[in-house]
């Protein structure tokens, strides 16, 4: 192809976080040629920020745990909108995937008898999260990275994909550019795996990394794939609230797992005031019992601080709204209090939660072994994403696969902490396996030259517009989008606000037609952002439209005008697709049927 470097592979993986690397490893093991495209440097993906742990029913700490309990916890946490087959595969295979990491060099914290230690986390009945202090994501990505570099995988660092390529209804590859020189590149592929993670950066307050712009979800949508569950965004209950520049930065749920408690400005542990019926049987109403649970007493019930994230986030919002918040608009999360219970508390806290100690000390000047933290909800995760087949992770487009946060189904309406890292491993592996299989059974499709021309022209347009007159600054549009999403499509949602949000998003979509950038193509953040806006806006619109369609409250989606769960909406997923005219089509589709034996497991454990 004239002027553009073309790379040809059997399988191309877009994204180099946990899911992408795990997929690449598996595809390479199957003997096909594999490329991984990293938007940033290898090993810097958002996975690195995961803190608390990876959920797997290893039953090292509590022998009562097994895949069935993990499966049921995941379904309950997702309020039964999950794809049950995915939840089954996830619960069954995550222990294998975690042990595999150990064989590749990961060094998890240990039990007294030398096995992998597991900790408590919200919504998990037993201690289930394998972890390394509060830097589990770093351990995971480094293990996968160091393993991948010795496999037959070609790694393209600082390359950005701006469009998927299609011909005759199937995937033919991906089109992008290298950051350093800004030159276009074609990746000709038999199969493409999207593993681009989440979209937290479309909100103002977010725990997410720079990379989390929803790119892959939008790439798949524009290629014609179906998205589901886009209304379900997880707002993590505990982000930093002060100082403003670090607002949203994550505070691991592990703080609560280790005995940390939430209090309002009256000193009350307000989580005791609202325990949902679904969890009444397994939640303690006694502070002392809750403490014993965090310290491993198997007969104790869990404290309400460890209820699911959607619920804890809403309780915090209520306290703030009703005037019982902390000075900077959050509530208090206190781990220092455990000095009443154990003698070497400061050392214990520093050892169990080293990054949290460091983060507060360095960025807020707070010593968490002495004083409480101020916390509030932060945009953390999207349960929805690209619709995939449970076993193979293939999307609705032949040859296109998706795994990890950008794929949907496993988590239903709310994800349990720790289920993301295991999701990456289980379904990353499956995507790699099935993409390799698919690529063996097919040949390369033909690249459509017209498509390439069209995308190139679009991509270079911001340079042609100059900076005069009506030209738009890409960073300004990005900020405006973040403000609107935060204000109108946040934790608490309303029909008229969602309508307003859709209008505002459409207006932003018009403004990106006028976005311009200066300088040249080499490492140009303005140009990069200009192109990325399209993806951010697409994902924002999908979230707003799905949220408007679901007229009930469930999991991460709370409608103030429809505060209850509805049986009718409990039977459907909201599906979003690009119609032939290029508009966003919103449909309700019946959720996948659950196998009888799986339903039975759920019923037995209710």
């Amino acid at each position, binding site marked *: 192809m004239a002027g553009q470097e073309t790379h040809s592979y059997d399988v191309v993986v877009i994204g180099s976080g946990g899911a992408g690397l795990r997929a690449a490893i598996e595809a390479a093991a199957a003997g096909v040629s594999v490329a991984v495209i990293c938007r940033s*440097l290898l090993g810097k993906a958002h996975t690195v920020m995961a803190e608390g742990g990876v959920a797997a029913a290893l039953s090292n700490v509590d022998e009562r745990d097994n895949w069935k309990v993990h499966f049921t916890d995941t379904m309950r946490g997702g309020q039964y909108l999950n794809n049950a087959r995915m939840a089954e595969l996830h619960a069954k295979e995550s222990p294998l995937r975690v*042990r595999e990491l150990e064989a590749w*060099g990961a060094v998890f914290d240990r039990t007294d008898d030398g096995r992998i230690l597991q900790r408590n986390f919200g919504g998990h009945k037993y201690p289930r999260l394998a972890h390394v202090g509060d830097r589990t994501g770093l351990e995971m990505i480094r293990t996968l990275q160091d*393993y991948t570099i010795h496999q037959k995988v070609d790694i393209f660092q600082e390359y950005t994909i701006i469009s998927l390529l299609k011909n005759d209804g199937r995937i033919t590859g991906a089109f992008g550019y290298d950051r350093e020189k800004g030159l276009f590149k074609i990746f000709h592929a038999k199969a493409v795996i999207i593993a681009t993670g989440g979209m937290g950066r479309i909100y103002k307050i977010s725990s997410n990394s*720079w990379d989390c712009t929803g790119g892959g979800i939008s790439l798949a949508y524009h290629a014609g794939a179906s998205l589901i569950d886009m209304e379900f965004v997880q707002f993590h209950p505990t982000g930093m609230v002060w100082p403003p*520049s670090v607002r949203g930065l994550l505070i691991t749920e592990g703080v609560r797992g280790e005995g940390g408690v939430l209090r309002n400005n009256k000193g009350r542990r307000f989580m005791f005031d609202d325990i949902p019926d679904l969890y009444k049987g397994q939640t303690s109403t006694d502070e002392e019992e809750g403490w014993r649970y965090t310290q491993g007493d198997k007969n104790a019930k869990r404290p309400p601080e460890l209820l699911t994230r959607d619920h804890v986030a809403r309780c915090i919002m209520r306290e703030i709204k009703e005037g019982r918040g902390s000075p900077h608009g959050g509530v208090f999360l206190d781990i220092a209090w455990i000095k009443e219970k154990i003698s070497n508390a400061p050392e214990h806290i520093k050892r169990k939660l080293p990054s949290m100690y460091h983060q507060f000390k360095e960025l807020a000047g707070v010593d968490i072994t002495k004083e409480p933290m101020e916390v509030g909800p932060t945009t953390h995760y999207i349960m929805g994403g690209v619709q995939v087949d449970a076993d193979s992770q293939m999307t609705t487009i032949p040859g296109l696969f998706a795994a990890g946060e950008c794929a949907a189904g496993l988590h239903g309406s709310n994800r349990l902490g720790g289920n993301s890292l295991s999701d990456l491993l289980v379904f990353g592996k499956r995507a790699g396996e099935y993409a390799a299989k698919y690529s063996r059974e097919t040949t390369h499709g033909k690249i459509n030259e017209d498509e390439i021309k069209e995308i190139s022209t679009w991509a270079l347009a911001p340079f042609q517009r100059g900076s005069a007159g009506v030209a738009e600054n890409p960073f300004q549009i990005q*900020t405006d989008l973040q403000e609107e999403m935060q204000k109108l499509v946040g934790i608490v949602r309303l029909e008229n606000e969602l309508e307003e949000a859709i209008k505002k998003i459409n207006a932003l979509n018009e403004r990106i037609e006028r976005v311009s*950038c200066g300088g040249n193509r080499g490492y140009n953040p303005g140009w990069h952002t200009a192109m990325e806006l399209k993806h951010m806006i697409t994902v924002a619109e999908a979230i707003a439209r799905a949220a408007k369609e679901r007229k009930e409250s469930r999991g991460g989606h709370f409608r103030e005008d429809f505060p209850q769960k509805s049986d009718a909406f409990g039977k459907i997923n909201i599906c979003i697709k690009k119609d032939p005219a290029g508009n966003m089509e919103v449909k309700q589709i019946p959720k996948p049927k659950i196998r009888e034996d799986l339903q039975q497991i759920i019923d037995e454990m209710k």
Partner: protein
Amino acid sequence: MPKVLFNIWRTNSSGGEFQEYKTEITEGMVVLDAVHQIQAEHANDLAVRWNCKAGKCGSCSAEINGHPKLMCMTRMSDMPEGKPVTIQPMKAFPVIKDLVTDVSVNYKIKKRIKKFKPRPPDAPDGTWRMAQGDIDRVQEFRKCIECFLCQDVCHVLREHHLHEKFAGPRHMVYTAALEMHPLDTEDRTRDLKDGHGIGFCNITKCCTNVCPENIHITDNAIIPLKERVADRFYDPLMKLFRKFSK
């Protein structure tokens, strides 16, 4: 709110120069926030590499007022008042553009280090047993976020450009994590001496001083590795023997 003056290195066709920017500083801001603000307000094409802005990914390494630091973990309130803040790219690596450097050499060096090779599993279910006490020191090394500030400040690399001969502190930490891993069975001692040039390190501890993860690079990683090399290749009894037999 006060405006602060920044001198930021910008590359151009003749190499590069410092350019002045002024931006408003609000409470709690870190240097990376200021750079972003300047990027949004004055210089859309100002190149800076970053990802997490939480000190976890190690992307935003630069030299702030001459000190190698993560921009995201350097608070504006710690900068000397009334003085301009100077930001330039890491000196030990070639500049790609503005504050972004080419750190690819580090990925090449790492690939040359022999990979993890575990002993056979300890239990029939394919799992291993390790005591927490035996993995504490390995876990210290595995905290590394690969910001490469230690490589930047190491004079063997920074002043003498011996990237080909000396693997550098990051890779000594990486090797130490493998060598001290209770399950690992590989031997990297000869490589340390020959290919990775551990002898070049003269333990000035510059690397330890800049590590944002507070890893005791020199004391806990490099010195024990030097001891292994010494035990293997420079055993004192043998040395003595050689001396007397001259």
